[in-house]
């Protein structure tokens, strides 16, 4: 496969604007789907994704191995009562376990990329969707985002047969089998205590997918064999992002004989369920500003604090939608003759996550078009044109006048100088014209004098390195003009792509 590389990448950034034209053949979509199927559970980078642009480090995460570890045992005894004393009928000991987590095998984490997710959710129905990922270098921190409630089980003593004229002691509890508050005999050494503690497992779960990332979390359909224009901007300069969820403590007051119901009451309820100070991402696809149900994140309005262009790391979304709750205690009949006292500690916290974006790691790492050499086997045939990458600036793609600096009203590329003028700076990468693409001439940065002629030439130090066969393609990009050849419609007829 052919590709272009920029060995030192682009500068680290907190703001960026990227404009590109691309065209994805249906055959490439099918190939990516087949490749993902072959990947199975190995989940290599860019599985099922046709890359268009990748940059930044290739981080690793890890799998979490969970195992059940025996943490104690309890004895279950059945006693009879003859009117004066108790006799053991049977006694058995049962071990019980709790889950333990440990770091397992390394996993691959996607780099920053713009690409196309390819799926075949059902036979013959192909979908392709725009994918955008900005992979950061640092981790956020959180607490009670993930938690475990290990159980402790006490000995269980059940009253079996009762003879004689003297009654054993009695207890009162809710009986779900009878759906009533019930009073019956028990042994003096009851009730059966079952309790839960809490363990904050955020420290192992939150970082498992590598450093935090910002992604397009919604669906933007990419039709095969057609030119598309993607205009993407991010603003990660807004400072720390915080997210909090909900913590609720319930209780079941002990029932009294004659009660018709056994209702849970709320003891306390702390509710935030929101992301504060999210980062921003704007996308216009095919000259239409994306305003989707759920917004860029795919989470709004189901997550507090998120508007259409707000984004946050996945862990922040988890915190903002996470609800930790427990029942303080509940007294019920485990079975006739044994009351179960279910108690939980309530000292856990509400889900929280904080992430302070550092600049996106890009400089010193190879930028690849469509992908870096390390991901060579993930490159599929694509057509591309008119790539512009600006760092240090943002663009609100809802502003039609600003989009006109990249795409005209007829759906065709405009002079790249328009974008430079609009944004007030030169692009870090400009690949304009098939000749420059083929030779890797990056005409974005300022020209330098030709050492021989003195004429201005593109800075060789900022040039991209072409590898493999990159060939000119016609027709030129446009939304409404000639789109070039379409392959067999045998599968695309069923495609859900637009």
């Amino acid at each position, binding site marked *: *496969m*052919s*590709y272009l590389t920029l060995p030192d990448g682009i500068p680290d950034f907190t703001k960026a604007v990227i404009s590109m*034209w691309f*065209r994805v053949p249906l055959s490439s979509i099918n190939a990516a789907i087949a490749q993902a199927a072959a990947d199975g559970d190995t989940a290599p980078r860019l599985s099922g994704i046709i890359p268009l642009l990748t940059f930044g480090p290739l981080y690793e995460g890890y799998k979490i191995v969970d195992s059940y570890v025996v943490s104690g045992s309890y004895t279950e005894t059945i006693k009879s009562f003859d009117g004066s004393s108790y006799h053991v009928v049977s006694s058995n000991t049962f071990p019980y376990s709790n889950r333990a987590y440990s770091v397992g095998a390394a996993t691959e984490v996607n780099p920053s990329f713009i690409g196309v997710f390819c799926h075949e959710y059902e036979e013959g129905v192909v979908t392709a969707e725009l994918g955008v990922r900005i992979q950061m270098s640092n981790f956020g921190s959180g607490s009670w985002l993930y938690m475990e409630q290990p159980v402790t089980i006490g000995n269980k003593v059940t009253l079996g047969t009762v003879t004689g004229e003297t009654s054993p002691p009695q207890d009162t509890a809710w009986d779900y089998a009878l759906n009533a508050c019930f009073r019956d005999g028990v042994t003096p050494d009851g009730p059966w205590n079952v309790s839960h503690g809490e363990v904050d497992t955020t420290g192992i779960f939150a970082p498992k997918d590598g450093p935090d990332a910002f992604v397009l979390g919604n669906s933007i359909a990419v039709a095969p064999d057609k030119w598309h224009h993607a205009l993407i901007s991010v603003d990660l300069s807004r400072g720390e992002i915080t997210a909090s969820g909900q913590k609720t403590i319930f209780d079941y007051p002990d029932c009294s004989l004659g009660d018709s119901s056994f209702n849970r009451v709320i003891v306390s309820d702390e509710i935030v369920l929101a992301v504060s100070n999210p980062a921003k991402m704007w996308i216009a696809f095919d000259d239409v500003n994306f305003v989707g149900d759920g917004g860029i994140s795919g989470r709004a309005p189901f997550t507090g604090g998120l508007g259409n262009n707000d984004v946050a790391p996945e862990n922040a979304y988890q915190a903002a939608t996470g609800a930790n709750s427990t029942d303080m205690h509940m007294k019920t009949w485990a079975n006739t003759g044994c009351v179960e006292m279910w108690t939980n500690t309530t000292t856990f916290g509400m889900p929280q996550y904080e992430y302070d974006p550092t600049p996106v790691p890009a400089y010193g790492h190879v930028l690849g*078009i*469509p992908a870096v050499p390390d991901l060579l086997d993930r*490159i*599929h*045939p*694509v*057509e*591309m*044109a*008119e790539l512009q990458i600006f760092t240090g600036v943002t663009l609100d793609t809802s502003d039609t006048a600003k989009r006109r600096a990249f795409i005209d009203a007829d759906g065709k*590329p405009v*002079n790249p*100088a328009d974008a*430079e*003028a609009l944004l007030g700076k030169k692009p870090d990468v400009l690949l*304009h*014209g*098939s*000749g*420059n*693409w*083929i*030779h890797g*001439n990056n*005409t974005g940065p300022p020209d330098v004098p030709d050492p021989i002629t003195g004429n201005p*030439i593109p800075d060789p130090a900022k040039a991209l390195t*072409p*590898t*493999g*066969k*990159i*060939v*000119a*393609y*016609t*027709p*030129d*990009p446009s939304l409404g003009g000639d789109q070039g050849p379409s392959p067999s419609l045998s599968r695309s007829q069923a495609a859900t792509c637009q």
Partner: protein
Amino acid sequence: MPDDLRYFENPYTGLLKEYHTGGLAVHFGAAAGPPIDTVSAVRLTRKSHELSNAS
């Protein structure tokens, strides 16, 4: 500078910038072919041959 570029004056900055008059797009593909530097070498060889013929 590729042949399909010409200069124009940026109306915003007054600077001369290259403006593309030819094709804009490329294909990254699986089609078998020599790497681009080999293509250049082939072209150079052809030119050398033409020069050789001319002489």
